[in-house]
């Protein structure tokens, strides 16, 4: 899952090094518009709904966090 999300997001946002940081939100690498783009990409790719409660730094700080969130929401 991690690899798939990495490929997807790297293609979508080539300027961002998703593996270069585990604190993508904390470091200001992801702003709210980029986070919206990530939500759109994941929603359309995996057919999931990402609820407001999941928009937390822990989920968006790294590819691992995103993969964990997608897996959790896919199994719902």
């Amino acid at each position, binding site marked *: 899952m991690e690899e798939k999300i990495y490929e997807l997001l790297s293609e979508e946002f080539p300027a961002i090094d998703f593996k270069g940081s585990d604190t993508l939100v904390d470091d200001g690498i992801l702003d*709210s*518009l980029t986070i*919206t783009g990530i939500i759109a*990409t994941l*929603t*359309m790719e995996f057919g999931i*709904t*990402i609820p*407001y409660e999941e*928009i937390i730094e822990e989920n968006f700080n790294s590819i691992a966090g995103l993969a964990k969130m997608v897996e959790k929401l896919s199994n719902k």
Partner: protein
Amino acid sequence: MTFISVEFYLLLAIVAAVYFIVPLKFRWFILLLGSLAFYVFQGIEMLPLMLLSSFVGWLFGLCMGKVYERDPKQKKKAKLFSGIAIVFLIGMLAFVKSSRYMPESVASKIIVPIGISYYTFSIVSYLIDVYRRKYQAEPNFLKFTLFTAYFPKVLQGPIARYDKLMPQLAEGHKFEYGRFCFGLQLMLWGFFKKLVIADRLSIFTNTVFLDAANMSGSVILVAAIFATLELYCDFSACMDLASGMSQIFGIELEQNFDHPFFSKSAAEFWRRWHITLGAWFKDYVYMPIVTSPRMAKLLQMVKKHFGTRCGKSVMAFVPLSVVWVLTGVWHGTGRAYVVWGIYWGAMIIISQIFAPEIKKLNAFLHINVESESWKIFQMVRTFALFSIGRMITIPNSLSTTALMFRKIFLDFRPWQLVDESLYTFGLDRKNFLLALFLFFILWSVSMLQEKGSLRLRISEYNVVFRWMIYYIAIIAIIVLGIYGPGYDASSFVYIGY
């Protein structure tokens, strides 16, 4: 009574003196008394309406707290409570804001409590956060009223969040000389920006915009640039004064400005200008739309029929359109404000949707996007975009805005920029050239602030140099400040919102 009045500073001095005399645990109560006194000075008739909003916010927050205490999963009931309170508060705000559309006989009877746009948004954020169980409801009505009406922030914000401000207000702070000096320094810079720069520029802009039909395009263009800097100096000065006086009490208000004219795009600009308003819309309007199940369904449907690219465009378009129309309406109820909101929304949406094409265009034109010259161009572009936006809202009449744009394009007289013409619109040659020098000071200080805390660096200088800076600033404010009748400066622009 505004931040630029003798009465206000008498009140501040009394509140500060009593605050540091009474025991720590009662200090919040002194701030409350000071805030209520400030409101009474604004007009005693406004007080009941502010107290009503505060009471509604407190009561329904408490009801939600009780619901969650009994059953933490009772979200539906809590939603009902927060919904009723929010509809009431926003309804009240919309009612007083729409008074301009009512007959004069009715409108003149409507009381508009000062700061209603700011404190209503603060209370609504509190109600939503309690509903989301971000924190517990406030049990003490008086403390909640202090959060609503804390006097340094009630006039023009920042739009305070309960979890950031309330703990600081409730906790008594000891007097600290260093913090006291830092607060005064920030206030000094605020006075400088307001009295020396903003109010000086307002003489020129008022003269030009009040008679725009008879002005040439070149004069209107200069006035639009001045109006942009005037608004920045005016609003950020008020924030510096609010933050500075709060620092005296040991309270840190949220940052509302982060040198917005160093921004390289419209989206970045709005993350650095009126930060707390943007953050409010992001947390309570934008993200709930982005994460709603309906939006997810819409995206999947659009992807299925029109492809991923179209889905992403929908995601950029829908929430940003809603946010920007609402942001426009928040600033004012006229059509001009709606157009202004659409203008900024369109700018940000287009840059989002066409980001790949913009990137390709830059590559095609061999533009080095990392070069300093390109960054400077982007900053100038941001400034120009903001100035265009100012021209939409300043006359509050779209026909006058259209006329001004026509004049800039069809009646531009470049020689007026270099002959003596510009000295005939309220600012004589000396004051006009001084205004240009003041822009240089503003830019220099902003550059230094971008590199880190300027006040911290000043505090490290030797005592002689330090006091020389203070004296120069004080003398500049006294000598160069623009003082109206009764030594009461012009009103702050954002008080009207």
